């Protein structure tokens, strides 16, 4: 048995301590001087990042640590850093709002850290216990985040929309775990894999367990039809919260799916493949089509996010190393694109106006060429135009899926991509003006929030750089899964 405590748990410890500290510091006073909140949270994320890099073992297939609960392999490190990056970006965007004080800022920042902690566990799980607990922690933190986010009574409302379905689906997933446990007699992922490989044929209990677990994870990655909560929550919440709510649980869920797909459940090829195929196809098509007529930008982004999750599932469905690599790349790309896109939306939001419609995007014109270029870059990346990161992500997915023979899935995804193009073209239209005057010429220009602008700029640059020079990212992804 491994020692339960390891130096490799340093990032988790840092996050946990920082989270607790934030909760305690910010707990009582309703008007915290909250600039330190953001700084503290950011610092925690940074330090955790350093710790991840220091303690992460880039070499493939290291042994489990923490009593067999975690395995800090390349995959884990990849997802950990990704989650931290996303969190950092969103925290930077949130410096402004948090810095303006108001109650709950500390809780919000703490929940970001807790969600990261959960994602850490989920991404490096070597045991169903840590997987379940980690993914639940992500969800719980997100629920609190949503519930505590500004927005009056609607915040509770939104939280409820995650809470109830999550209760049902996590129970279902847990039931699936219990079935798998019953069928193979172990909860350790490696042992599960060994048992399943030994089994002469996959019995229906295993299938049940696997599919139920998949359903639970689909809820987290918002695959159709488990996606319903996502647009309802993301479309409605403040943009910065939306970004976090959309991106982090999905990345955690994807990490779990990848881990199970290439590890524990790799012997269950047929059923796993079918389920992933359907979820992927449904998510891609639904997401793109639903986004097409969305007039509300955040809802549209939410729908597109569903489509992106669907693309990523294509890599999971492929089930090969190339597929895994593609999922990693796609996750990284989406993790850069969506925070940036939500950040752009955040620049338009104000207390009076939280619902941003496509025509409102014309307000970006007040930001001059950089804003316009930004919108074009993000729209291009969302659409997957070459030379942006969006294309890189999809390229690897297509390649992997084709290699695995999923031709029709690729064709469907191409259709979805084209439909997605249409959405993105719609987004660009009011910004590039085409002479349509903004409805409220007197109305608000975009907010001048330096932190948000900085984060968005960073995202945009990263998108372009990855689009032009994807080699480091790809190399990293290749290294992360150890093979290929």
């Amino acid at each position: 048995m491994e020692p339960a405590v390891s130096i490799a748990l340093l990032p988790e410890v840092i996050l946990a301590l920082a989270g607790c500290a934030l909760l305690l510091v910010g707990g009582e006073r309703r008007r915290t001087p909250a600039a330190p909140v953001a700084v503290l949270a950011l610092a925690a994320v940074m330090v955790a990042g350093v710790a991840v890099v220091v303690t992460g073992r880039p070499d493939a297939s290291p042994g489990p640590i923490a009593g067999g609960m975690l395995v800090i392999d390349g995959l884990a490190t990849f997802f950990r850093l990704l989650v931290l990056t996303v969190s950092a970006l969103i925290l930077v965007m949130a410096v402004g709002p948090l810095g303006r004080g108001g109650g709950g800022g500390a809780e919000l920042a703490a929940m970001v850290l807790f969600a990261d902690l959960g994602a850490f566990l989920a991404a490096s799980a070597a045991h169903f216990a840590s997987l379940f607990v980690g993914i639940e922690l992500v969800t719980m933190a997100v629920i609190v985040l949503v519930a505590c986010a500004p927005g009056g009574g609607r915040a509770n409302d939104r939280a409820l929309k995650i809470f109830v379905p999550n209760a049902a689906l996590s129970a279902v997933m847990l039931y699936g775990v219990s079935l798998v446990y019953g069928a193979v007699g172990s909860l350790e992922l490696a042992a599960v894999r060994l048992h399943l490989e030994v089994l002469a044929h996959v019995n229906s209990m295993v299938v049940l367990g696997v599919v139920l677990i998949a359903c639970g994870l689909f809820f987290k990655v918002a695959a159709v039809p488990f996606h319903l909560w996502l647009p309802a929550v993301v479309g409605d919440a403040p943009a910065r919260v939306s970004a976090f709510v959309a991106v982090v649980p999905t990345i955690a869920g994807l990490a779990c799916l990848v881990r199970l797909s290439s590890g524990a459940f790799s012997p269950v090829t047929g059923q796993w493949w079918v389920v992933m195929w359907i979820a992927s196809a449904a998510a891609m098509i639904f997401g793109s089509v639903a986004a097409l007529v969305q007039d509300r930008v955040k809802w549209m982004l939410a729908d597109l996010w569903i489509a992106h999750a669907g693309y990523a599932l294509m890599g999971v469905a492929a089930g090969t190393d190339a597929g895994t690599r593609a999922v990693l790349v796609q996750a990284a790309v989406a993790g850069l694109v969506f925070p940036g896109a939500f950040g752009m939306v955040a620049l338009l939001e104000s207390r009076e106006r939280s619902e941003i419609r496509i025509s409102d995007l014309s307000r970006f014109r007040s930001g001059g060429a950089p804003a316009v270029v930004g919108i074009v870059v993000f729209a291009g990346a969302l659409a997957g135009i070459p030379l942006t990161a969006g294309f890189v992500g999809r390229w690897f997915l297509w390649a992997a899926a084709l290699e695995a023979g999923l031709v029709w899935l690729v064709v469907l995804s191409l259709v979805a991509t084209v439909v997605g193009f249409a959405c993105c073209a719609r987004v660009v239209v009011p910004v590039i003006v085409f002479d349509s005057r903004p409805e409220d010429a007197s109305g608000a220009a975009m907010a001048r929030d330096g932190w948000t602008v900085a984060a968005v700029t960073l995202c945009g640059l990263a998108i372009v750089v990855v689009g032009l020079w994807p080699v480091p990212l790809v190399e990293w992804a290749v290294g992360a899964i150890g093979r290929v």
Partner: protein
Amino acid sequence: MTPPAGRGAEPVDFSALIWIVVISPLAGAGVNGIVARRSGVAQRTRRFLALVGPGAAAAAGWALALSWWIADPGKTVRVFDLGRWISGVELPTAAGDLMRLEIAMSCRLDGLSAMMVALVVTLGILVHLFAVGFEKQERDEDRSRLFANQNLLLAGSLAVVLAGNLPTLLVGWELTAVASFLLIVSDHRSARGAAAGTRMLIVSRIGAAGLLLAIAIAAFNFGTLELEGLRRALLADLSGDASGAAVAIGLLVVLVGVIGSAQLPFHVWLTESVHTPVSASAMIVSVATVAAGVQVMLRFAFVMEANAAIALAVATVGGATFVFAAMVALVQLDIRKLIGHVAVAQLGLALLGIAAGAKWSAVFLVVLYALCLTSLVLGSGVVVRSCAGARDLRRMGGLSEVAPVSFWSMFAAAVVLAGVPPLGGFVAANGILARIFDAGIVDRGAFGGMCFLLWGFGLLGSALAAVGLARLVFMVFFGRFRGDEEPASCPAETVPAVVFGVAAPALAALFGGAIVGLSGGAGAGTGIEWTLTAMTALVVVAGIGAAARIYVLDSGLVRAEYLARRLPTTRRILLAGLWIDDLYRLTLVRGAIWAAARLDDFDARVVDGFVCGARHTIVGISWLSAIFDRLALDALVRWLGDGFGTAGRTLQRSQVVYVQGFVVVMVIGAAVLLGIAFAANV
């Protein structure tokens, strides 16, 4: 392919001459079109520049022809490459090997082309001389463009005449077509001219397409594009079992010739082209048709010799056109249109002769035709100007005193062309008719009974043509003037240049024809031939007599009007040109436009509909999903609200989606996934 023979000891540098012949009108076109149109250029300079091209061409052309006739005793066929155009493209042929397409601008000098070059350059310079003098009176600034286009036409015609291979022929043909088009539309204001020009150019597209197809067949099936090589190949082919390819080439070149010489059913372009300035009209009528039509026919006359079917087709077309055009000429009231129809008729006769094998007579007729028509067209210009622009024959009459030069010239030309024995026209027509009749008697196999019909056509046509020409001269020059304003003597009448244009060709035709006719007419010997000759002479004289009776003796045209009243239908039909033009308009033109409009609709509705339809479908699905959300949501809220006992309370129509609905859908989804997974398991 340049035959190696004679390269070394060339007495005259033919190729240089050919260069000059072809290039000088082109250069003339360029100079007139670009330089002379500049505003600073003096009128005198412009006139000079107009003459440079045709003059040089005439000099070089005659030098070429003469030196070929004189300096080259062997009379060998010579081919000159004026420059590579395309080379090195390999084309697989029907024989299975590769043919290297080496396409040069190739010129072929032989008896036919030498003579035709001489003819064309002569007409060219004469017309230009006339034009310079004639147009001098008008002081129109835009004449340089006209000259440029005329030069272009000359160049094109020379290219056709000299062409040594099919591509060169095509280039020349097209150049002629474009120049004719430009000449026809040269009065930009005239909608009618524009329509005629458009029609002409479109019709010429058909000819060009035919020629292009012929080139393709020649290259693919016979592996050569040289006229000489092709001739050998075609003859070899046609004399044996005629292959489809050879016949196709024959039919296609014949089609080109028919279009170029404005035969039925393509004659309209020529008869409608007469609304141009006279010099342009003369170029078109006497140069363009000769080159683009007759020359093509003559070049490929061997096809008709070798294949009776093609010959018969051409002969039929020619004969029919002869009669038709001559008949239409009888009722034309516009002097220029009358001349146009006369031209078409004479070309028909020439084609009939070529097809029937009376090549010599036909060539002779064509030379006469070109000269006489030049005279007639240019003379008509003088006449019309004398009448202050009126072109209606009924408003003329008695102009012989006002325009004596024109009168005598046109009179001579008409006499020659109408076939008054023993002049050239008679000799030629007689020769052709006799040849046809001969053919019918001697070798019935070729034409069979059709010969006699064709001969009948020819005879009838001769009579009608004689009437038409006589009508022209009588109505214009004889009797008394019927117009309103007194005719004024046109200053152009006396300008030497004009005299050249109008009188010189007529005289040339008169004397040349007379000489040849008197000397050549003696060849005939048998009784039948004498009978035929007599019959031809008889009908011609009878025709002229009839015309004289109607138009000369009755200057008031009472008789003519009486005839017109008596035969209103006939007159209407003839005036409408057998409605051939209308037929085109109603079928082809309307049909094309109709089809285009329908296809446009189809394109916009159906084809585009599919593209847009796909888009609409996706957007529609998207809307539906959105609407479904909303409807389902509303229904759900209302439904649950009733159960909740809150009926009557206003329920907010917001995006509050009932959370438990999520759970239901998700559980259903899980169940479906489970079911599918099990199904996949089985």
